[in-house]
């Protein structure tokens, strides 16, 4: 089981909170797609023939891709990789790109799952985040893609923004639920270093974020989604039964994946690597037949820590048998011992060979993970 991630590093405008890698100038777009096509060939052996189960177009803004771009990319992937008969193929789209033409292009392509960057249905919120779309586009695009037949659908929502009261947050969640969307990714707004938001807060132009609000809105979210029949299967992800993101789940299961395009990350059991985060340099290097990347070999401890970190984010939790088999009995015993305080406080539970976080533990997944790390 393996996945392919394709990074499309362009956006129409920069959202204030965003620290993904992208460029707002489309000048290099055609050159970049050509380079991407070349990279697919250069990396054809990365997955050593493993069956590709999932493909994910992320960004940036993959909905900026033209019909021709998509065709070429899919043809090239098909040529060099073995694709399963039932792949999950997701594409991230922004509401302002989802007009009738674009939707039909996507529908006629192999893409079978959309992930829409809605973030909020409230105008003021969208302005605060400097999103390229407005509230009307946010609601309209959902009906459009659903009626075009995209049934497997995710939307992203952000909570914890200064203008977002609990009522407004619940309105957003209700809108999600009314539309019978199958999957939700919900994120607390975080201030990443060197973003516009970071700058505004540091210079006093924006108010600082309130973590009490973020916490209470996450609790609201968890309650709402449980009552609405969604499974909270990962810290920031909720799905109707059978509708989990297969691609993202593979990240949390430690599966191998190949990342293509600038800044994309790849993983094999004992190493991670990432392409250079610079469009011009990426294009230039690929042209000479060399993938511009850096690689990090993971020590056993690092592999252990990663395994803990990703597993604890999920409902399936840490498989204790895997800990024992991969890392040895001693590490297993240490882990169980160190988890006792969290089990006592009700934040963790150990059951049938699995150690995992309870909902209250999910709220603090990072802190608990750090405490269970080995050094």
């Amino acid at each position, binding site marked *: 089981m393996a996945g392919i*991630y394709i990074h499309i590093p362009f956006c129409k405008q920069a959202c204030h909170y965003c620290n993904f890698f992208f460029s707002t100038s489309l000048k290099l777009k055609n050159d970049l797609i050509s380079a991407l096509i070349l990279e697919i060939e250069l990396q054809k052996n990365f997955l050593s023939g493993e069956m590709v189960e999932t493909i994910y177009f*992320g960004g940036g803004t993959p909905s900026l891709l033209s019909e021709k771009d998509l065709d070429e990319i899919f043809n090239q992937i098909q040529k060099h990789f073995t694709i399963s008969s039932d792949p999950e193929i997701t594409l991230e789209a922004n509401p302002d790109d989802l007009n009738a033409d674009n939707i039909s292009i996507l529908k006629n392509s192999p893409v079978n799952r959309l992930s829409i960057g809605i973030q909020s249905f409230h105008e003021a919120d969208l302005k605060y985040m400097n999103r390229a779309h407005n509230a009307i586009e946010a609601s309209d695009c959902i009906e459009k893609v659903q009626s075009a037949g995209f049934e497997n659908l995710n939307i992203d929502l952000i909570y914890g923004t200064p203008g977002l009261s609990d009522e407004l947050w619940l309105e957003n969640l209700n809108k999600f639920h009314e539309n019978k969307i199958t999957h939700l*990714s919900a*994120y*607390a707004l*975080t201030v990443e270093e060197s973003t516009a938001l970071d700058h505004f807060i540091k210079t006093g132009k924006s108010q600082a974020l309130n*973590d*009490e609000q*973020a*916490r209470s809105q*996450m609790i609201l979210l968890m309650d709402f989604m449980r009552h609405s029949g969604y499974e909270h299967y990962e*810290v*920031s992800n909720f799905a109707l039964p059978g509708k989990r993101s297969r691609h*993202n789940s593979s*990240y*949390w299961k430690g599966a191998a*994946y190949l*990342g293509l395009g600038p*800044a*994309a*990350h790849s*993983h094999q059991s004992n190493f*991670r690597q*990432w392409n250079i985060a610079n469009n011009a340099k990426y294009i230039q290097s690929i042209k000479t037949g060399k993938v511009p990347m850096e690689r*990090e070999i993971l020590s056993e401890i*690092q592999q252990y*820590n*990663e395994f803990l*970190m*990703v597993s604890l*984010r999920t409902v399936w939790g840490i498989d204790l048998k895997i800990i024992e088999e991969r890392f040895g009995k001693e590490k297993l015993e240490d882990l169980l011992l160190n988890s006792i305080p969290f089990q006592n406080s009700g934040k963790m539970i150990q059951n049938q060979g699995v150690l995992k976080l309870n909902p209250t533990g*999910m*709220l*603090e*997944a*990072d*802190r608990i*993970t*750090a*405490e269970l*790390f080995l*050094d």
Partner: protein
Amino acid sequence: MKNYRNFCIIAHIDHGKSTLADRLLESTKTVSSRDLQEQTLDNMDLERERGITIKSHAIQMDFEHGKDKYVFNLIDTPGHVDFSYEVSRSIAACEGALLLVDATQGIQAQTISNLYLAMDHDLEIIPIINKVDMDGAMIEEVADQIIDLIGVNREDIIEASGKTGVGVDLIFDAIINRIPCPKGDPEEPLQALIFDSMFNSYRGVIAYFRIFNGKIKKGDKIKFVNTGNEYFADEVGILRMDMEPRATVGAGDVGYLITGIKESQMIKVGDTITIKENPCEQAIDGFEDVKPMVFAGLYPIDSDDFEDLRESLGKLQLNDASLTYEPETSLALGFGFRCGFLGMLHLEIVQERLDREFDMAVITTVPQVSYDCFTTRKEHIVIHTPSDLPDPSMIERIEEPYIKAQIISKPEFTGGIMSLCIDKRGFLTNQVYLSETRVELSFEIPLAEIVFDFYDKLKSISKGYASFDYHIIGMRPGKLVKLDILLNGEKVDALSAMIHRDKAESFGRKMCKKLRELINRQQFVIAIQAAIGSKIVARETISAFRKDVTAKCYGGDISRKRKLLEKQKKGKKRMRQVGNVEVPQQAFLAVLKLDD
């Protein structure tokens, strides 16, 4: 022996000692050009990072002069006040001193104090105006200052540059012609002074010595005169870029000795080495014990490491004879050591060296000077830590150490310096114009007021021009109180401080504010209070932490996130649990950063 010259380089901080040493090492080909770097002798990481010399460093050079061959033993010394003990021990191994004065700065406070140290030992002084290549060099003005200070002739002052190498030949001539060769008799019984030592995990203790009489051979059965300990000389040699073993080291020379001793307390800097079978009659006068100026508790972060800390301190002390320590206990921190330092930089360096050289992360309690407390029952108690202080009802008076501070600066900064000193409870005792552009101000100030941030403030007020030297003049009564810090109502003795009554409240407020910044939010509300006796004078609260933002985590986030969490976990290891509150290592030194 008549071709030996033993000398040190002394100066105010940054006047270019180590850089000039580079030129001497280069000209004598002691160091190959491949191995030569800037300030080659500053070989400790900490020295290189900070750009200052911390340890004296001895090195031997060969020099050919016409058909004569000379051997020079050079000792480069530090310039910072906190390390003046290094200078005084180096001086005891020499017959001469190169006194550098920066041509752009002129004579500064430690120029004078180091000069006097050298004159006390009758060293031949060779004055050198250094950095003459610089645009701002005021050669004649500085020459006048030197003539005034030591009463030499103008032609005896050498103009040089450690950067360009100008004047280096003249320096070699002066070393040969003006510094006397060592006296002493190679046929007399061995008499060698240990002026420094260090610990090496393979070789054990290494002692650096200067031989005054006799000689030492590999395999000799030797004896330390003061401690009476006896050992075999496993290896003796001289100090070049590396240690170079020799069969014999003779009178007048500087060298090293390895006996295989692994226990640090078996050897003492200042002791005399002699031969068991044919001992010298007298020990050489050792060194005066240094009086620490500042005291602070050092505690292992992990309380199980107490014995390791003791061992590390012992080994460090071999290489830092000015460090003192004795065990103490703290309610908050458990077992640790009360250590004495020559100043705050010294404290900081010790803490860093423990961490880097011995992998020993420590928590340092609030530093303070030593007080004398006189009780109503007429007892006299020396207070090295606030918890030594008896109940206030028992205290008749407390006395604190005063210093005489000499500040040399430009007249235009006099006003600013005066207000600083007055703010620090000092008073002016003298003001002398050394020249039209240089004034010397003398103050009497409580030592406690200058140990923390005085020097930084002085530097900023005088735009870097003022230099400062001080010595203790005695104990005087003061209105001193103990300020306690409470975390959630529990007194944290490691954060208590002795402070003047008039400053206690504002100090308490700043302390609470700073701790609020440094202590992370925890699962519960934390109250930080400052109290004098039972009276609360300041309070801050840290609200409970509710959510550590558990952010998203997809394929491209995993590496970064793992590293972030690993760092978070490491950060936690540098914390100490006090009551139920986790306090980070830096919080204990909060007092030093109150004004940041």
